[in-house]
């Protein structure tokens, strides 16, 4: 793609300004997207390929001439890299032969390790025609930017107890209780296993194979996993219950506290073992399983040894995150105990809607699992092809010849694999048989709209609960739960349909990844081992020597990433946890800083106790201060997850205890109270002074603001872009504003707002704009629209001829340039020529006209640099200066519509400064909405502008470290602001004496006036107004059509009709519904009463009696009734055309509609 202006642009950005701003904070917000993809391309791909059984694969890399992302955007291409993989062939025991296969063009995430822009500084980025603050994290596909949506998944490798009615309906004899675990392999693919409780006190293990659930008795699985005895299983199952008389230890614990087992456990263990009485050895069990599953196991259909099949089932479908049968056995025992405890109501079910039991699906992981499945499919198909070829007796096929094999494999095009990935990212739809253990198959990606920076940024911070919940009628999933405190923003969620389902991460929230803080790939095996050594030093009784240990009240099980690694005595566990946290924070230890130490303490009928450690990626984490560690080391910032947070004592940073009991002293402290807010929410000044829904409205409106959308605007070819021409930096701003560099993309204007009721044009949330302010450029905006025309696409349809852009030689004075494209800077009115196409074969030129109802200005023309000019994108510019009906809003959910552009001289003016307000709003906007922060903002901005400085409006600032504050803390915010005004001779309360602009007399009361940051919203009348008098009508009904684009009308519907009836405005009603709609004069036969049987009879033509200068005499039409064969009874009746249509439709159903005519009316 080269552009007409490119040369100049190059020079222009040759040496960008040397200032490289600190984008670290912003970069942090996007990191989880990029890191997950990085992992995918560096390590994930390899581990994934290793997990695919029959082949071994080497490496993937990109090899391509530099195509930069901006070029992809303009040319509507995809930003991809070549995906090569080595496929190993091995014949019997012969040497392995490596053959390189091209798997097509794999989409590359911007700013990932494979991206050309990785590590580029702002200057480099600008020279690559990107934003200087480009963050990446998305894909460019056909010129569109698409982001993978973060979707909530159940927490991996943690057994959750659940109560669901659907479990009961599964089969006869099932209860509604189960323990569910989502096991994730190292390559991110996961398998969910459910342990159901049966009404006969037994349990069944359920897992899915190819879209069907299979259930196995627990005893069978337990016996199949390891060589064991009934006694051992019994002991293991019942270890959580100690009979009272057996030991006096029990009395040491509070009555009932932590007793998860009951005397029923023993009976149940008996039942479980009784069910599988016939199976004694492990081999028997495996053979039994293998016998049932052999037809389902891919590649093992012909296996004769059933126990091998059985083992494969256990390996592939049961607890896939664990390798050893022994670990699986222990985990199953643990789950059975948890299930029993749930049944006996000694522990509560886990809430599947709480963030505590959630993690997130990251883009890299999604691609990994999808790619894995696609590769497996490809191999299966390849195998089938080869098999067919060998079996085909008619041809001789030399299997040993690699060339032949490759030839066969070519029938199974390998390039489709990358294409599948690209399509998945384009459409967000998974095309899969197995479902990949995901809840949803569609809506996985969204377009990253650059309407403004905040909206763009929110796409990367949004977390969706899952598409399957959107249709649910219950509202429990949408609830704001305390578990999500600090991780998901309580303010930033849309209202309406996706409310509570589409959440946004708080500004401090991060997602754990495969990379540590230094950017090195983590070795989870080492991490786990080191954690284990630390734990065994800390008095953990390891589970490796197979000993039966006492259960929960005395000892707590320790699970590390879903593996029962041992147990710790409940007496020392608190110390162990504290020590783990200390190690976690210290830099020298091997324990990662984002280890989740989920210590669930003993409780009476609370959550099932235990120590759950998680090191896995894609967990939520957030930083808080650990105050139990002396802070002098400077390393007291700990990353905690939602699972552990629930059981921690975290206090507010106001220095007080928050009503905590002495028995539970706070061990941690929030860093800043604004950590609970998302980026967008934390930009609202003093949001702690607003009524909460107003803050929510602001979050939505900030995302639909017409703002300074992009800095590299000249290199963009977005479908539609809104751009504010004259933005300002807000005077009143929060600390987040600077931190996230919002000054790069400001969203509004500091307008002088007067709160008064003037002229009546500010009623009901309307607002008056000062015409002179608008004249001087306030809220001036633009809409950019890009049209991309690719003539090579159009070719294939009908004719083979090639078409390209060229102006026809005939009309040289047209508004089109000689290359067939419009001039840059030219205004094109509706129905004027836009571009012209030349057909090579017919040698004809055709000019295409500009559609649309308003004139546009050609902003930019980009062409494809090939020989023939076949592809071009033209960017148009629509000026959008404020007019009556445009929508504006302050940053406090106070939106309004411009009702008048009022002349400056008629505006009230301040006697002292002579200032006329830019904007007038009605005082009635405040009492019911209680947006106190807007009043504060007005006063503060006034003070700030008088003193020439920005005012910090960070919410909850007064609840941060009150102790350390200066002694004059009694001063309230209002006092501080009022003092600023008073110093400069203004009224303490922000009011001013004003004079009527019309009469010059003093207004009876003082007017509250000051600058407020106003945003212009993207809803503009010019894009919405609809006008019609006559126009296109519907083919069938002859009524006006709908739709603004097609020049349709607005429906005058039932409710409007009702109001007309209520007013008795019968004539108007008739006018709307009949005269202006489908007025029709029908011929009716009064004899048979039919309107359908009329037919015209052509009278004999009277030849040429036409007098010169007079219109020819029109032959009078004669209408007869076809049924009655006469024209005697023909009458004309005015009726809606649809009535005639109704009669026709009824006739089609053999219903006759007859009219009886009379003159009685």
């Amino acid at each position, binding site marked *: 793609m080269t552009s007409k*202006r490119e*040369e*100049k642009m190059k*020079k*222009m*950005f*040759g040496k960008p300004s040397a200032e490289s701003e600190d984008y670290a904070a912003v970069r942090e917000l996007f990191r989880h997207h990029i890191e997950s993809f990085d992992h995918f391309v560096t390590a994930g791909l390899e581990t994934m390929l290793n997990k695919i059984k029959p082949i071994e694969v080497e490496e993937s890399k990109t090899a391509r001439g530099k195509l930069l992302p901006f070029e992809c955007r303009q040319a509507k291409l995809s930003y991809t890299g070549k995906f090569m993989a080595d496929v190993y062939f091995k014949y019997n025991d012969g040497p392995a032969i490596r053959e390189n296969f091209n798997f097509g063009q794999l989409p590359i995430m911007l700013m990932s390790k494979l991206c050309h822009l990785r590590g580029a500084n702002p200057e480099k980025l600008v020279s690559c025609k990107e934003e200087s603050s480009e963050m990446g994290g998305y894909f460019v596909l056909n010129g569109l930017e698409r982001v993978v949506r973060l979707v909530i998944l159940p927490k991996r490798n943690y057994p959750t107890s659940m109560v669901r009615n659907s479990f009961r309906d599964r089969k006869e004899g099932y209860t509604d209780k189960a323990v569910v675990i989502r096991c994730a392999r190292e390559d991110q693919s996961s398998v969910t296993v459910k342990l159901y409780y049966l009404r006969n006190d037994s349990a069944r293990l359920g897992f899915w194979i190819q879209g069907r659930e299979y259930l196995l008795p627990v005893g069978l699985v337990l016996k199949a996993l390891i060589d064991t005895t009934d006694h051992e299983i019994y002991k293991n199952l019942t270890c959580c219950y100690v009979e009272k008389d057996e030991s006096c230890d029990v009395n040491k614990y509070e009555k009932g506290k932590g007793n998860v087992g009951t005397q029923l456990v023993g009976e149940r263990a008996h039942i479980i073992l009784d069910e599988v009485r016939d199976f004694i050895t492990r081999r028997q069990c495996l053979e039994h399983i293998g016998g049932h599953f052999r037809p389902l196991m891919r590649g093992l259909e012909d296996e004769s040894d059933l126990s091998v099949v059985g083992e494969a089932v256990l390996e592939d479908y049961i607890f896939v995150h664990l390798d050893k049968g022994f670990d699986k056995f222990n985990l199953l025992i643990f789950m059975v105990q948890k299930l029993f405890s749930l049944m006996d109501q000694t522990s509560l079910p886990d809430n599947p809607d709480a963030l505590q039991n959630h993690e997130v699906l990251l883009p890299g992981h999604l691609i990994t699992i999808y790619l894995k499945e696609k590769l497996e499919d490809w191999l299966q198909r390849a195998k089938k092809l080869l098999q067919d070829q060998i079996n085909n007796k008619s041809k001789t096929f030399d299997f040993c010849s690699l060339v032949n094999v490759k030839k066969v494999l070519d029938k199974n095009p390998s390039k489709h694999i990358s294409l599948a990935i690209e399509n998945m990212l384009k459409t967000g739809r998974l095309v899969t048989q197995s479902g990949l253990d995901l809840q949803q198959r569609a809506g996985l990606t969204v377009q990253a709209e650059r309407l403004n920076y905040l909206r763009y940024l929110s796409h990367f911070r949004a977390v969706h609960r899952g598409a399957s919940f959107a249709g649910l009628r219950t509202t429990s999933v949408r609830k704001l739960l305390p578990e999500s405190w600090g991780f998901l923003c309580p303010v930033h969620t849309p209202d309406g349909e996706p409310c509570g389902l589409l959440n946004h991460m708080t500004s401090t929230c991060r997602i754990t990844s495969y990379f540590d803080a230094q950017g090195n790939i983590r070795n989870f095996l080492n991490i786990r081992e080191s954690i284990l050594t630390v734990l065994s030093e800390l008095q953990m009784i390891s589970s490796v020597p197979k000993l039966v240990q006492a259960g929960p009240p005395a000892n707590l099980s320790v699970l590390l990433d879903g593996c029962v690694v041992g147990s710790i005595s409940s007496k020392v566990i608190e110390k162990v946890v504290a020590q783990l946290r200390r190690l976690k924070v210290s830099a020298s230890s091997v324990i990662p800083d984002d280890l989740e130490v989920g210590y669930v303490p003993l409780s009476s009928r609370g959550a099932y106790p235990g120590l759950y450690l998680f090191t896995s990626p894609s967990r939520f984490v957030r930083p808080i201060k650990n105050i139990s560690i002396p802070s002098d080391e400077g390393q007291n910032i700990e990353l905690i997850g939602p699972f552990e947070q629930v059981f921690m004592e975290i206090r507010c940073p106001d220095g007080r205890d928050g009503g905590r009991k002495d028995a539970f002293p706070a061990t941690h402290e929030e860093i800043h109270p604004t950590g609970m807010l998302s980026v967008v929410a934390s930009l609202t000044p003093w949001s702690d002074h607003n009524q909460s829904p107003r803050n929510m409205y602001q979050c939505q409106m900030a995302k639909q603001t017409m703002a300074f959308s992009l800095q590299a605007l*000249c290199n963009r070819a977005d479908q539609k872009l809104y751009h504010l*021409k004259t933005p300002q930096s807000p005077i009143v701003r929060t600390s987040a504003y600077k931190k996230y560099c919002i000054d790069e993309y400001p969203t509004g204007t500091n307008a002088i707002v007067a709160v008064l009721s003037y002229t009546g044009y500010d009623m009901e949330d309307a607002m008056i704009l000062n*015409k*002179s*302010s608008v*004249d*001087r*450029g306030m809220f*001036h905006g*633009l809409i950019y629209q890009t049209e991309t025309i690719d003539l090579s696409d159009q070719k294939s349809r009908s004719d083979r001829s090639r078409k390209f852009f060229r102006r026809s030689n005939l009309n040289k004075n047209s508004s089109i340039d000689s290359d067939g494209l419009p001039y840059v*800077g030219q205004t094109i009115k509706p129905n004027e020529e836009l571009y012209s196409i030349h057909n090579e074969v017919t040698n004809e030129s055709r000019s295409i006209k500009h559609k649309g109802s308003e004139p546009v*200005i050609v*902003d930019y023309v980009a062409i494809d640099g090939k020989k023939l000019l076949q592809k071009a994108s033209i960017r148009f*510019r629509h*000026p959008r200066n404020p007019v009556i009906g445009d929508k504006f809003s302050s940053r406090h959910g106070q939106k309004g519509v411009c009702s008048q552009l009022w*002349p*400056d*001289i008629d505006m009230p*003016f*301040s*006697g*002292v*400064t*002579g*200032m006329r307000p830019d904007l007038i709003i009605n005082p009635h906007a405040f009492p019911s909405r209680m947006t106190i922060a807007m009043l504060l903002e007005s006063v503060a901005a006034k003070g700030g502008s008088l003193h020439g400085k920005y005012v910090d409006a960070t919410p909850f600032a007064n609840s941060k470290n009150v102790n350390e504050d200066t002694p004059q803390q009694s001063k309230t915010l209002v006092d501080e602001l009022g003092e600023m*005004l*008073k110093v400069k*001779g*203004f*009224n*303490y309360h922000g*009011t*001013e*004496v004003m*004079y009527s*602009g*019309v*009469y*010059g*007399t*003093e207004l009876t009361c*003082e007017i509250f006036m000051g600058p407020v940051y106003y945003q212009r919203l993207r809803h503009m009348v010019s894009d919405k107004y609809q006008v019609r008098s006559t126009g296109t009508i519907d083919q069938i009904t002859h009524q006006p059509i709908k739709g603004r684009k097609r020049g349709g009308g607005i429906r005058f519907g039932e409710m409007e009709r009702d109001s007309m009836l209520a007013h008795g405005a019968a004539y108007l009603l008739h006018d709307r519904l009949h005269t202006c709609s489908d007025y029709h004069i029908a011929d009716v036969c009064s004899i048979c009463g039919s309107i359908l049987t009329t037919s015209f009879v052509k009278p004999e033509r009277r030849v040429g009696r036409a007098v010169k200068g007079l219109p020819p005499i029109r032959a009078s039409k004669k209408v007869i009734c076809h049924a009655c064969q006469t024209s005697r009874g023909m009458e004309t009746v005015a009726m809606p055309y649809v009535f005639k249509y109704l009669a026709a439709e009824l006739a089609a159903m053999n219903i006759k509609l007859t009219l009886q005519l009379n003159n009685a009316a």
Partner: protein
Amino acid sequence: MEGKSYQRLPRVKIREMRDDYMKFELRDTDASVANALRRVMIAEVPTVAIDLVEIEINSSVLNDEFIAHRLGLIPLTSDRAMSMRFSLPFRPNPRRHSKDLLSSDHTVVPVDFSDSAGMESSEQKGIIIVKLRRGQELRLRAIARKGIGKDHAKWSPAATVTFMYEPDIRINEELMDMLTLDEKKAWVESSPTKVFDFDPKTEKVVVVDPEAYTYDDEVIKKAEAMGKPGLVDIIAKEDSFIFTVESTGAVKASQLLLNAIEVLKQKLDAVRLSEDTVEADDQFGELGAHMRGG
């Protein structure tokens, strides 16, 4: 009709006058006249501003309309605007600053701000239109036209015109004497602007600057809060006004006032000329008869 004349002879006293700033008193007239003067100064004194822009080449970062809009807002010296009758062809060739505008008429040039402040550096070249990088180009022809601020704010010669009623402040000395020293000080402090002062020698409160009073009633409220209503009596004089005029530089502030009076006169003449004529009825309808005193 013929009886008593209500004619008054307003007086103007100029307090302070600079090129772009003026403060004057207007006495012996009505709020309507004062406001009319203000309104005319803002919206109806004609100036010259760039209105039609023909862009030949523009490879700058700003788009054509934006540059045209910015050019329009540059104040041009329009001393002759009052006498102009036609639009003026104006051929500037701007590069970056308003000083780069070349005019075909030496009486109409961009306003020069550099000398007024005095301290500005030599690099100051006026109002920036657009910043160009090497290789970027902007060539255009612009036509400046006479117009008034009512039409578009770019033709408004006044940055700010405001007036206030002259206050008449009377301190009730009897009540004042009943206050303690601290109370007096507190009362003086209660006004955000320095209207009153406390004289430590005589221990009396004096009015130092009545015009600093903004009619915010703070001192009255304070007096009421101290239990001394009527401590001070402030009335706005109905017939005297203090005007503050700030000019954009297109017209000198003093000239702006004169021009405004001229425009106002012309408007009145238009009414007077059409007195008793049919035109008045055409023009004003029923109002015409009303204006004639009918």
